[in-house]
């Protein structure tokens, strides 16, 4: 009995290892067709669900010729969008490609020119472009690339962090150093309770109240990268604030009191005593919050817009990896499903690295 239970408990502990490794393996296996088809280029390819027809299809109907024009005009660039029926808009997007905020996207996009020269590019309008497909069924290839959601994820998370870090620090400083106990106690409890609210509530509030509010102030639609980033930021504020406060509270009173005794102001105590002491904990909690923001689905899904375009302004809609998964997963099959698994794998690996980094490097000696 004793030996049995011991075996059982060790087995359960191993289950955790098993689940994690099988997540990796299963995601990899399902993503394999996409990985084989697109390789690492997937990471830098901005096209999603774009049908590519080889040049031979010159006898194809009028539509193709139209798009051939697009091709000639912009031989150096790649159409990025799958907004249907808006060839004009594609041209604009292409010309603007140089303005994309991330350096990686511009440079990498250019490396693909050779592949695309002499290739007709056409959008798949969710099946509306079927006539063309029928003429040359086997010559066409659907291209999936994950750059837009990857950039969208990084930008929305970055915005969230820029917005949330100062406010969360402010709350933490306020709670641990400024406010008298009769304020800091209830406010602290309220903050912790807010961290427990399901993320879908934040998303819904963002859609109906915060989005219109932001578009009223900054212009643009009520769904945009900016709204997504801010809602995400608001969502991680309570989490970050309560973790930061906890690690600030670990500073021994003696240290603070000696600094005050030397005549230091409150700010100096915070800056020169508390921060250096709690530095690792604070940075660690920020990275944990970052990991949470990276993988957040529901708060973002309502307000980011879900379109596969690069945001040229903050108020443009775009898409992030979890949102792509949430919106497209149920209807996908074959290659598109595999591409989604590829995205999921990328997201999992990124957040795994971020979280392990926080855990092993910053929060290790907390125990």
């Amino acid at each position: 009995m004793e030996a049995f239970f011991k075996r059982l408990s060790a087995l359960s502990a191993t289950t955790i290892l098993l689940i994690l490794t099988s997540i990796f393996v299963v995601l990899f296996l399902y993503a394999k067709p996409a990985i084989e088809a697109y390789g690492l280029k997937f990471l830098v390819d901005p096209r999603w669900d774009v049908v590519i027809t080889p040049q031979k299809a010159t006898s194809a109907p009028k539509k193709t010729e139209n798009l051939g024009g697009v091709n000639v005009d912009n031989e150096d660039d790649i159409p990025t969008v799958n907004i249907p029926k808006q060839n004009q808009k594609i041209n604009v997007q292409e010309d603007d490609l140089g303005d994309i905020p991330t350096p990686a996207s511009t440079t990498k996009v250019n490396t693909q020119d050779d592949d695309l020269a002499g290739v007709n590019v056409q959008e798949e309008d969710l099946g509306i472009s079927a006539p063309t497909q029928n003429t040359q069924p086997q010559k066409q290839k659907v291209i999936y690339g994950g750059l837009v959601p990857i950039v969208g994820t990084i930008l929305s998370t970055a915005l969230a962090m820029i917005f949330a870090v100062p406010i969360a620090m402010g709350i933490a400083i306020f709670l641990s150093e400024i406010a008298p106990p009769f304020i800091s106690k209830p406010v602290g409890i309220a903050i912790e309770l807010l961290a427990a609210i399901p993320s879908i509530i934040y998303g819904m509030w963002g859609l109906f109240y915060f989005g219109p509010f932001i578009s009223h102030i900054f212009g643009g639609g009520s769904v945009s990268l900016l709204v997504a980033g801010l809602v995400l930021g608001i969502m991680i504020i309570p989490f970050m604030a309560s973790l930061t406060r906890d690690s600030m509270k670990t500073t021994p009173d003696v240290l603070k009191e000696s600094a005050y005794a030397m005549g230091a102001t409150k700010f100096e105590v915070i800056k020169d005593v508390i921060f250096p002491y709690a530095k690792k904990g604070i940075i660690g909690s920020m990275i944990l919050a970052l990991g949470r923001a990276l993988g957040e689905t529901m708060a973002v899904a309502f307000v980011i817009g879900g379109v596969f375009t690069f945001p040229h302004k903050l108020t443009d809609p775009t898409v992030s990896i979890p949102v792509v998964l949430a919106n497209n997963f149920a209807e996908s099959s074959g290659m598109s499903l595999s591409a989604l698994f590829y995205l999921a794998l990328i997201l999992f690996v990124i957040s795994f690295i971020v979280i392990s980094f926080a855990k092993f490097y910053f929060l290790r000696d907390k125990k």
Partner: protein
Amino acid sequence: MRLIINKIVLLLSTLAAILGLVFLFWILITLTIKGISAINLHIFTNDLVNNGLRNLLVGQFVLAFIAVIIGVPIGMVAGIYLQEYSFGNKYAEFIRNLSDVMMSAPSIVIGTFVYAIIVSPVGHMNGWAGAIALAIMMIPIVVRTTDDMLGLVPKELREAGVAIGAPKYKVIFDIVIKAAKVGIMTGLLLAFARIVGETAPLLFTSGNSEYFTLNLNHEFPSLTVAIYTLATMPDKSLVDIAWAGAFLLTLFVLIINLLGRFVIKEKKK
């Protein structure tokens, strides 16, 4: 000058705190107003197909309960291993860290994983898949709670048990777990509150259903998934139902959290 900087910084951080709190209370207030105005007896007695929430509320609880039934034993026994049997070896430390990392893994990725192992072979979404996805989310939380709570039990209690000749599993079950019972129960309550509000792992595992069902082999009603679809509908009455659901969900989660906090406080006395 120092004093002025000090004043400015303190003012700024107070302002930041106020700003943050304003946003957070804005959410709660709109949620309460919208939610209460949409709640009536009708939504508790009708299913989604008749603009009610009954099947969704029941469905969400059933999913979460099954997740508890699957996840809690595995998580607790794993936690017992980490605290009682590992004697601080490297493997246990590794598992402990891994479980912490898994706790923060993106929930949507867990959804895709369960889709791959269950929904895809079966061919359609079903309730079991949703419950398993929630269980996977829950296991690391339970491990952490059990691990922490057992760690608080004094060593002397264990030694006393061993001294009278009890086998180790008896010591664990009859002494250590009894001593840590309140803490573990609270932790489980909080873990339940956390997974009951999850949406992302359910989106393409259990899906949603408009009808009342307890059959886990088919698509299963889920409150959170329904909120997601209803809130984006153009029909205002459907959006109101979503608000009512969101309000009930938040109320439930907050009450459980307050309860857990209260229990911990009582225990400390």
